[in-house]
């Protein structure tokens, strides 16, 4: 399967904060939505910065559309739409002024499409952005990101702080976007319910380190949590354990194959695992 985005052994160290993005590698196939999950400070924004060249990586390669993107590669950036959390654009602009600026930046800027999104999202074109609500600001950023016909959307916490109704509208737009088979989305988010709804793949990172990438189907149908007593936990083959966490009266054990664990470990309660619970196990638990 071809990948629209490939990260290979990306390293970045911030000496002042002592944070290191440590040999991060993952890839996003064409036509897919990837949820990018990790706790605050895990390195999601740094990773996105390395992908988009807003941060200089120390080591490793990032391939977008099959090639490494340099500052000179304006053609590649023409095909990328970006949405950051918060104010993406100067708040003294109106949506109309935003369109003027963007039409001077993107060759493929589609003013009619942008206008269509403004109407669909009920965004007044002549009102200053500073008078928009947070939801409106995010919708505007999404409208802008989509209006130059990108192939790849990169969204950094774009749905955080939005109410469920606005989020639902936005997720519908994303699902519509990936109907085109060469379109993909990398969506960093804390709101795992959104990812459970739309993502095809989930990539976990923790403290700057890659943990795993799994398809959502694998997460839903294969991965599971065993609720073990201490004696049961001691009997579990370490090769079956991805991560474990001691709770009050039980030990939660994340296993990659729930059905196999069910056959292997009789009498142990085995539950499906949510992305939230997986993240907790990876972040707060012990790893194999």
């Amino acid at each position: 399967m071809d990948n629209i985005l490939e990260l290979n052994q990306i390293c970045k160290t911030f000496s002042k904060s002592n944070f290191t993005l440590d040999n991060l590698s993952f890839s996003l196939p064409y036509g897919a939505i990837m949820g990018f999950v990790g706790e605050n400070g895990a390195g999601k924004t740094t990773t996105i910065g390395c992908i988009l060249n807003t941060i200089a990586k120390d080591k490793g390669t990032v391939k977008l559309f099959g090639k490494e993107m340099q500052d000179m590669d304006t053609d590649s950036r023409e095909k990328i739409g970006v949405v950051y959390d918060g104010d993406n654009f100067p708040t003294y602009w109106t949506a109309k002024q935003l369109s003027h600026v963007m039409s001077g930046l993107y060759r493929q800027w589609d003013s009619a499409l942008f206008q269509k999104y403004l109407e669909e999202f009920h965004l007044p074109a002549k009102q200053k952005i500073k008078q928009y609500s947070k939801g409106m600001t995010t919708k505007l950023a999404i409208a802008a990101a989509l209006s130059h016909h990108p192939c790849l959307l990169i969204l950094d916490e774009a749905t955080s702080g939005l109410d469920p109704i606005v989020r639902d509208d936005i997720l519908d737009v994303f699902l519509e976007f990936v109907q085109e088979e060469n379109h993909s989305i990398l969506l960093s988010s804390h709101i795992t319910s959104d990812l459970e709804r739309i993502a095809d793949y989930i990539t976990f990172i923790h403290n700057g380190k890659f943990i795993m990438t799994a398809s959502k189907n694998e997460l839903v149908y294969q991965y599971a949590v065993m609720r073990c007593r201490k004696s049961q936990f001691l009997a579990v083959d370490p090769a079956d354990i991805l991560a474990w966490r001691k709770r009050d009266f039980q030990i939660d054990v994340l296993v990659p194959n729930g059905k196999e664990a069910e056959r292997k470990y009789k009498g142990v309660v085995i539950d499906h695992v949510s992305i939230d619970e997986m993240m907790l196990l990876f972040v707060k638990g012990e790893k194999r």
Partner: protein
Amino acid sequence: MKGLLIDNFYATLSNAKIFSVIVVLLGIFVVAMDNRIPSLIIGYMLLVIIGYSLNSIASIRKESVTKWSQYKLTTPIKRANIITSYFISLCLWLVIGIVFATIGVWLSVMLHGYPFDKNTDIFMLFVVGIGISLFMGAIFFPLFFIGGEERNEVFLVISLLCGVGGVMGITTLINNFFPEGMTCVQIILGGVLILACAVIAIVLSYPITVCVFRRKEY
């Protein structure tokens, strides 16, 4: 580039509107006043020329309040283009300042006659205004990207002082070089020398700013 220039224009516009109102009111006052003592017209010319330039470079700060500075890097433009747009915008606002100053001086001369001792004095006032503006930009842009947006105000002051200091320094050198009673040609040559130094400063500042901005992380 067009998009960047529009972006810079919007960033400067609201402050420029307020400044323009003041410039027009002040201009009316200056033109209405008798110009036998030319200090008002001198002040007006320098204020207008330097003011628009200062306004242009100060507006860069407005972008850093949001994620726009970061967002711009994800659009299909090169980092060098962003810097080029700042330099072009400074020059365009400088031209606007020169136009306003020219109109004010012209009207004052038309109404009240020529207020200066020498014919070269008006030329030298333009030289000083343009020279300070260019030196100021040449110092400010690299400082802004080296020191960070949060030190914008102090860099503006430093740049303005360096601009004034640069022009005064070169003027002192010229005066030392041509001791007593400079001829018109010598004064014009001195003015051209100041302008040339200011242009060289801004031309040298451009690659330095690009180099600094290429390393800038958001």
